[in-house]
């Protein structure tokens, strides 16, 4: 029943500027995050998308304050999450990418432990019911399925009724039904005003949930915006196979990009309906059967694939990291521990 006062209400809840993360040192090091900027407003649900190794989890860990950035700044609710961890923790909930609960404890014992570590914790039973784990309370964590463990993780993240929720791949390993339930829960939380930052590689998840999203590649944010904004300007696509003939040439399609690869033709267009009509008329006129005909509007998936491959072409020659950011004092760089994903 408790309603938290939105402290410092107007500003962004999460503010990330020129974030850098470098693992190891010198030439053997790995530059996982290369200048990420993010702004998440109160009550917003923001999704970080990216291929594996894009730097999503590395970024997430810096925003959560689990490690110090090699460069740049992070502010969550106005605090530096690494240096002011203690001030921030009671107001946020974190779900890591994997586990972190002793296998030999039961679900209820895990809940009891975390309840003791969380100020203003909701009843453990309530948290378990939220994620549909109430009936598994006396089962040891090691006997849970992967999906049940994800839900336990989510329940523990929700224990303190957080203002800001960090979810690192929350639905990985869930069956479709459980995934839908988690989405419903996340939507409810957002409706109650919780700010959510989540990573996912399910584009469908971002499409379903996110107010805004960022697509990461190679440690950088390559695109941000609402789903509609990210898709906008992306061409629709028509593909088909020509029967074995060489006579009639394709009709002129103004503004479209036509690629012919053997018999396979791909048309990228911003005028799907017109060009499709044009093509079908042409095929009818020449009495041609277009094989494997497929026409689709731009989707997040297509936008994502296109953006990722564009980005991959662009950063072939990788610029060296600025010297000032890579040479960290040995003490702090040694404490930069984490998974380079």
């Amino acid at each position, binding site marked *: 029943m408790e309603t938290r006062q939105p402290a410092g209400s107007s500003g962004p809840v999460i503010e990330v500027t020129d974030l850098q993360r470098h693992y190891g040192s010198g030439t053997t090091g790995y530059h996982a995050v290369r200048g990420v900027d993010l702004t998440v407003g109160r009550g917003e649900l923001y999704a970080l998308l990216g291929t594996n190794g894009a730097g999503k989890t590395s970024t997430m860990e810096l925003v959560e304050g689990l490690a110090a950035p090699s460069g740049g700044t992070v502010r969550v609710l106005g605090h530096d999450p690494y240096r002011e961890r203690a001030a921030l*923790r009671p107001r946020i909930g974190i779900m890591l990418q994997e586990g972190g609960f002793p296998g030999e404890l039961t679900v209820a014992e895990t809940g009891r432990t975390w309840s003791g570590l969380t100020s203003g914790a909701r009843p453990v039973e309530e948290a378990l019911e939220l994620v549909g784990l109430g009936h598994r309370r006396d089962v040891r964590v090691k006997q849970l399925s992967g999906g049940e463990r994800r839900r336990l993780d989510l329940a523990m993240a929700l224990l303190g009724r957080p203002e800001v929720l960090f979810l690192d791949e929350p639905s990985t390993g869930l069956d479709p039904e459980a995934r839908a339930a988690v989405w419903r829960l996340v939507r409810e939380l957002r409706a109650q005003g919780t700010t959510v930052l989540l990573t996912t590689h399910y584009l469908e998840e971002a499409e379903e949930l996110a107010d805004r999203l960022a697509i990461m590649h190679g440690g950088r944010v390559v695109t941000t915006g609402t789903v509609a904004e990210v898709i906008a300007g992306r061409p629709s696509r028509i593909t088909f196979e020509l029967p074995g003939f060489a006579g009639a040439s394709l009709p002129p399609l103004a503004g479209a990009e036509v690629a012919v690869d053997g018999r396979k033709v791909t048309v990228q267009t911003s005028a799907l309906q017109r060009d499709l009509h044009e093509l079908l008329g042409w095929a009818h006129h020449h009495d041609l059967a277009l094989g494997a005909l497929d026409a689709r509007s731009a989707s997040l998936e297509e936008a994502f694939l296109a953006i990722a491959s564009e980005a991959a072409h662009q950063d072939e020659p990788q610029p060296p990291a600025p010297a000032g950011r890579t040479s960290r004092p040995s003490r702090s760089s040694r404490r930069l521990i984490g998974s380079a994903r």
Partner: protein
Amino acid sequence: MTTAAPTSATGTTTGPRGTALRRLASLGRSEATLLLRNRSALFTALLLPVLMIAGRRSMLKQQASDHPGLDVDSLLIIGTIGGILAFVVYYNLTAAYVGRRNELVLKRLRTGEARDLEILAGTAVPSVSLALLMSAVVAGGGAAFLHLGAPVNPLLLAAGLLLSIGTMMATAALTSAFTKTVETAGITTLPLVLLSQFGSGLFIPLEVMPDRVADFCRLLPTTPGFQLVRIGWTGTDGSAAATGFGGTWSTAVPHLVTGAVWLGLAAWGAVRYFRWESRR
């Protein structure tokens, strides 16, 4: 769990000391449950120090035949307590830190409100409690069956125990950084376990050693704590005749100094090298 502090509703860290204690208790309870469900760890902790009593006794008796006046009974009890501290606190806790780290439990705990020191201390609660309980039983047994006298200087006895436990905890955290798996903790802890049992006056009292060796052994990390326990209980570390309460302080000073230096070094090393998650 009934003390959900309403003062923290604004989200600031007005967390009273009670909250920190609640977190420690919570972590300690979880860790105690895990210890009770881990047969081999429990076996090592409970039985090994006790099983070593016979060996200790015969070794001390043998030395007493060459060095008349050696107080075998009190050395046996103090040695057993030293063994308990080494196995129950140092070895057991090293394995616990490695296990929790590899299961990503430590990383997950850092996403919560517990501070780093609380996480480390909370994990140590069952080991330390068990060690103190076992030491109390052994001391009680010594008083009852071996007719040992009351401690000459209980303050120094307590200081010795605290110093030993603190140093063991810090070195356990440090050792865990160089230990890949729970199974290899037996190997990585071995050097310090052997040093503490044979080089700190437990199996071989310092006064039995050649002077130079004894001087060197006095500088070892676990010697000061154990010797303070001995001084606090018997009034001497064996280098001179036993004194009363007032006289023990001057005997204790060098040990307090070396002990504090080692504790500081171990704590520094632990902070410097401790790893909260395993490298993959």
